[in-house]
């Protein structure tokens, strides 16, 4: 009913989808799993029309289709229920359900609210939700909103010809156990009306609801598993496991760290949102890696150390002392450096030169009475451009024009040149090509040799295992498991995934 053939998608430096074949039959629930970066989200975006594939064919009801926007996909009967919900909270439930399709209720230019409410009740009945359609959406629980969103997508049933395909992206991430069961019951019943593609990192849920499961790795579909023919373990083994060159992560340069010197200590830290009871110590020369699914709370923990989030309880100590105030300024002043995931937005200031970027966090060292010493700044920048072999025409070059890897080097040297010895690296290799990645790994080892403590959120399991001395698995905002990666005690990617999902 829905079929993809040999779908290809490339981005600069990344081969995101490699000849992907994908098929959904009428009334089927198809699971889609894969590690972060395996190509799941790219594939989803191709399915719901946000990306056009570079090559390959998409067939819907036997006809070849091509979508240039999500709206075009909608019109062909392909709907999407987003992870971060897409209802407009200040509108009523019925307005959300019929947003963009109110014309059918217009009588002489005026909206017939009663007719719309009746129609909305019809839609809500499909998902077994008995609420007043005139209620404001913001007053609903998350589970109710999820169902409203489903009801909204199901209006396609009346609006388009042909069968429906509904994409569910991590629909259970904010739901309780009972709510998940309820949702699954409704989805199973709805297979009379539509087919579903179910994307989740919760393996047990994928297994329990899907008729077939596509397993992705490195942009390709590595296996299609029929219901009842695979265990969680089998699938997880397929998702991970690739031969990795030990030299890639500079593992020989991983040296024991200094247990006596504690740089950061978190004591049962809880954050607004879901992060609870996080405790760990970061030592000089240690790489501590936080592993978890997207939204598990890893970034929040890093941002709490950097003073961007105020803990609701617990304490963060830097070098055995509480900072006078919770702010990035105080943290940076205490020697904490932060390399954010969004390099172009939070890492560098594009439009400013390399040297201006490098001294951004340490202007007091390069000024007297508020007046900058430009010569000293530029000398520092030249020094670090040499040290890290940053490819820039000079220290005056606009940082925004450098390549991703060189920008990352600028961000790293910003902190290192200022003497930061606690480094928080959030996806430091994201979007970099292989050579640039290796440079970053090299720098991680260099920093450890200098006695720097590093908290890392890695791009992949391999990266985490390859770099870390200590791995902490975070799931739903809590610490699930701690691994010490000494000789022979390092976990396998499979083990990490097992504790994560």
């Amino acid at each position, binding site marked *: 009913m829905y079929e993809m053939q040999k779908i290809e998608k490339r981005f600069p430096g990344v081969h995101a989808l490699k000849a992907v074949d994908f098929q959904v039959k009428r009334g089927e629930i198809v699971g889609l799993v894969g590690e972060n970066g395996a190509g799941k989200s790219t594939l989803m975006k191709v399915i719901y029309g946000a990306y056009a594939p570079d090559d390959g064919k998409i067939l819907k009801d036997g006809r070849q289709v091509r979508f240039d926007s*999500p*709206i075009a996909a*909608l019109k062909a009967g392909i709907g999407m229920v987003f992870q971060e919900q*897409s*209802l*407009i*909270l*200040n*509108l009523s439930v019925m*307005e959300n359900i019929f*947003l*963009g*399709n*109110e*014309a059918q209720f*217009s009588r002489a*230019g*005026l*909206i017939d*609210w009663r007719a719309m409410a009746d129609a909305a009740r019809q839609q809500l009945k499909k998902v077994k939700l008995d609420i007043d359609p005139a209620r404001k959406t913001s007053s609903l629980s998350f589970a109710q909103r999820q169902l409203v969103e489903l009801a909204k997508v199901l209006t396609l049933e009346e609006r388009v010809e042909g069968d429906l395909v509904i994409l569910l992206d991590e629909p259970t991430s904010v739901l309780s156990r009972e709510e998940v069961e309820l949702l699954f019951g409704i989805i199973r019943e709805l297979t009379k009306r539509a087919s579903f593609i179910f994307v989740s990192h919760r393996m047990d849920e994928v297994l329990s609801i899907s008729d077939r499961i596509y397993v992705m790795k490195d942009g390709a579909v590595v296996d299609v598993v029929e219901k009842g023919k695979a265990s969680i373990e089998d699938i997880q083994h397929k998702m991970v496991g690739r031969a990795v060159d030990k030299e890639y992560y500079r593992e020989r340069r991983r040296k024991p760290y200094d247990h006596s010197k504690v740089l950061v200590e978190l004591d049962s830290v809880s954050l607004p949102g879901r992060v609870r009871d996080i405790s760990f110590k970061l030592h000089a020369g240690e790489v501590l890696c936080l592993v978890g699914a997207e939204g598990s709370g890893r970034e929040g923990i890093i941002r709490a150390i950097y003073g961007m989030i105020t803990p609701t309880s617990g304490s963060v100590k830097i070098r055995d002392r509480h900072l006078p105030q919770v702010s990035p300024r105080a943290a940076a002043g205490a020697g904490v450096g932060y390399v954010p995931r969004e390099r172009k937005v939070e890492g560098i200031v594009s439009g400013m030169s390399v040297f201006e970027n490098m001294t951004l966090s340490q202007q007091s060292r390069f000024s007297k009475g508020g007046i900058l010493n430009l010569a000293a700044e530029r000398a520092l920048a030249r020094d670090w451009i040499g040290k890290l072999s940053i490819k820039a025409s000079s220290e005056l070059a606009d940082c925004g024009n450098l390549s991703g890897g060189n920008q990352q080097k600028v961000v790293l040297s910003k902190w290192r040149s200022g003497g930061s010895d606690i480094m928080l690296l959030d996806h430091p290799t994201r979007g970099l090509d292989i050579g640039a990645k290796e440079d970053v790994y090299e720098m991680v080892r260099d920093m450890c040799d200098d006695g720097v403590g590093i908290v890392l959120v890695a791009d992949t399991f391999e990266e985490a295992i390859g770099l870390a001395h200590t791995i902490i698995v975070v799931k739903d905002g809590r610490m699930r498991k701690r691994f010490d990666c000494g000789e022979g005690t390092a976990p396998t990617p499979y083990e990490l995934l097992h504790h994560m999902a």
Partner: protein
Amino acid sequence: MTRENLLKWAPVLVLIALVLFFSAINPNFLSLRNFARLSIAASPALMVAVGVTFIIVMGSIDLSMEGAVSALAVIFCYMLVWLGGSVAGLGLLAVPATLLLGLGVGAINGLIHVRLRIPSFMSSLAMGFVGTGAAVLMTGGNIVKIDDEVFRALLTYRMLGFPLMAYVALGFLLLAWVIQSYTRLGRNFYAVGGGEDLAHASGVNVKRVRVLGFALAGFFFAVAGLLQVAKLGQAESVTGSNLMFISITSVVVGGVALWGGIGGVWNALVGVLIVSVINNGMIVIGIPDFIQDGLLGVLVIIAVILSTDRRSVAFVK
């Protein structure tokens, strides 16, 4: 009481408190005559406030009102004079013509904002200057007088003690309410204000909604221009002056969130009443009226602070 409910009713409570306060100091405040006076001052401001409410609900802002009202008022006067000088005859045509022109001016405003992708506060501010300049150009800095008894009846003819223009303003307020609550366009304003990208993803033509919103605002500015002429009996380049501050203040104080999506024309009414009661009350109890701008400025800031859900705002310029 939840925060949301409190915010919803706070403006009304403030209004009641103000009325009680001024009446307690000077009982004359509560007289029909005074309220009639208040309604004359409030009617044009209400029309401007209603127009800009639609825009603020979308999360944008329109600051062109002063120029737009002046230019439209001047054009109306010239048309009226040219068409015989009285709305009892051919001159009546000047009314719909001005309203249509208002729509057109607003649409141009919207097109500049949407097509050139300029933040609306700046594009509309610039257009306001253009409007004022145009008014000067047309009048040569002079005043255009209107002495049509029939048109001035808006001010002079009273029903139940209130001038006709108060009822006209109320009528247009009802029209605005119908647009807001019963038309697709009106509802789409809320969708755009609540989540522009989400609305777009659901197939709402956001650009069209924006342009139409500005056109609608222009229409109400035209009504305000007509009422100003009725009130003053003349038009000039400063006919619209001070309306920007008063209308924006009113809308915000009335409880329309600057972030869009929340509030509506009734909030605009309450806000205009609050501002008018303060203006009028200060005169009645004998406080010099120049304190008003300062007080209103402070009120706006307080209202914006109270209505802002700071958790949801990442950063603000």
